[in-house]
């Protein structure tokens, strides 16, 4: 029997997280390279299964128990451990979401296994499967292999594969419900309702031009020149996480995995090094101009126009030029 790849799609509050399609694309590519069988599972929301079953998959499992809602790491880890005991997989793939980060290290540890987390790709060379992940905040990349027995767990970074490239199946994949038993006392956490902070007042997702500042801005008072540039361009001001952590700009101006995801016509990154958590929030921008004094800053990897230099030298004349151009 061929080895199996199992994709665990993500549901939150009973709704499919669209990032799951990216994991399906990744799984389909690995299946094509290795010849392994590709299956998927959804934990605790059978209603999501049909949407997944339309994709090119050998089978879809709905792992069910009353105790899987609301989400807890204890229940999800216990359910998948039980499922994998009766449905062995060689490789288990998931999106690298906050929810997966919350339970997958626990699941793997409970089985004496490991997770290669936050991968951006894979290679299959002379029969060996390696996963590529970023290290040192994206400055370096590493090819990482498993040295343990299966199952191997691996998670993919948001945006590493294109969800819209997930292939449809010729017909819907069969869906099988697998009931799991979660004993009393397994779940220790009591989650309350999910909520959104009311102060989320700024919507940057519609902005055409964004001027974003990072650590390179040095001091709170220097944010003013970025604001002047944003105003001159008729754009919005945004920031990387450390700036909002410091309280220099409100949290609702934060771009990245814990903030907003944007895709403006122009993203002007001032003194932003380009940590992965920031890049996932802005790499879809139509054009990126980056100004940074560190020529090795990862932001330059994704910039269309790179200015290696001190932002305090470059921004003031830039404001003047923009004003001139606007007349």
């Amino acid at each position, binding site marked *: 029997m061929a080895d199996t790849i199992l994709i665990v799609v993500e549901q939150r509050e009973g709704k499919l997280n669209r990032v799951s399609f990216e994991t399906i694309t990744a799984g389909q590519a690995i299946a094509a390279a290795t010849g392994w069988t590709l299956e998927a599972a959804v934990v605790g929301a059978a209603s999501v299964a049909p949407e997944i079953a339309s994709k090119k998959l050998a089978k879809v499992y709905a792992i069910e128990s009353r105790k899987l809602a609301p989400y807890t*790491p204890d229940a999800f880890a216990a359910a998948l451990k039980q499922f994998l005991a009766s449905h062995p997989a060689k490789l288990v793939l998931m999106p690298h*979401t*906050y929810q997966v*980060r*919350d339970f997958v*290290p*626990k699941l793997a*540890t*409970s089985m004496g296994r*490991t*997770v290669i*987390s*936050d991968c951006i790709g894979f290679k299959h060379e002379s029969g060996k499967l390696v996963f590529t992940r970023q*290290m*040192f*905040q994206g*400055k*370096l*990349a*590493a*090819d*990482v*292999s*498993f040295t343990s027995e299966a199952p191997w767990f691996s998670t993919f970074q948001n945006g590493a594969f294109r969800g819209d490239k997930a292939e449809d199946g010729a017909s819907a994949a069969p869906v099988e419900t697998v009931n799991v038993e979660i004993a009393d006392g397994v779940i*220790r*956490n*009591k*989650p309350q309702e*999910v909520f*959104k*902070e009311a102060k989320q007042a700024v919507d940057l997702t519609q902005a*055409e031009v964004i001027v974003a500042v990072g*650590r390179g801005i040095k001091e709170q008072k220097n944010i003013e020149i970025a604001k002047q540039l944003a105003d001159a*361009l008729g754009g919005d001001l945004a920031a990387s*996480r*450390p700036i909002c*952590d410091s*309280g220099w700009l409100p949290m609702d101006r934060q771009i990245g995995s*814990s903030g*907003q995801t944007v895709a403006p*016509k*122009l993203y002007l990154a001032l003194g932003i090094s380009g940590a992965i958590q920031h890049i996932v929030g802005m790499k879809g921008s139509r054009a990126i*101009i980056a100004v940074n004094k560190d020529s*090795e800053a990862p932001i330059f*990897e994704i*910039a*269309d*126009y*790179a*200015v290696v*230099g001190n932002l305090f030298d*470059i921004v*003031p*004349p*830039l404001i*003047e*030029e*923009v004003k*001139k151009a*606007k007349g």
Partner: protein
Amino acid sequence: MKQVPQKDAPLKLNESGTWIREDVSYEVNEPDAYALEEALRQREKHKGEVVVITSGPARAQQVLREALAKGADRAIHLEDDKFVGFDAFNTAKAFATAIKDEQFDLIFTGLQSDDYGYAQTGVILAELLGWPHATIIMQIEKNDSGIRVKRELEAGYFQFVDMPTPAVLTIQSGINKLRYATLIGIKQAKNKPLRKVPLAEVQAAIGENLQKIEKLYIPQKTKKTERIEGAPAEIAKKLVDKMKNELRVL
């Protein structure tokens, strides 16, 4: 807590291309600094003791010294060059072994490290200890049955979770405002206890790494990047030209 290369430190690969060369400047992993700060604040509210722990070569002691200077009560250093190459599973096992005689109520870690970026060690440690955990925490309050924590979810969503203690929490950057060490603190730190744990003391718990870095390298560029060079005024002119004629945002 973990010592990691400084954010803007230029990194060089070692000869075998499996890790970086040691001769860079180091600093404390930023999320860990927030974890320490939160521990100090919780102690100020509820009394008790703050213990800091790290694994790594002799240089990593600097992280502990800084933590003691900020107000931690004592420190544990799993000291050996080999700890740098441990995967998250082995690192967590080493910690679990080194603290087996301790009676902690809460263990805080940063949510991830700036070097490996696994985002796993804290959760693995919880599982090894048999404790509950919660990740990406933005607030911690004590209540009758244990603690209530605020988890950050994606896209601006949050959730409160009630949980018993002892527990492991991974702390999000920005949960609090970091303090600086005072001169008195730095002086006092010198007399605070720092226990060194040699590799031999935890060796029995350590196995082969379950994952292996085959190759570390400078990532290949996938995007064509145009360098804009010249004096600042010249750069400004060129950028505005691009904005006007190519990007059409002006």
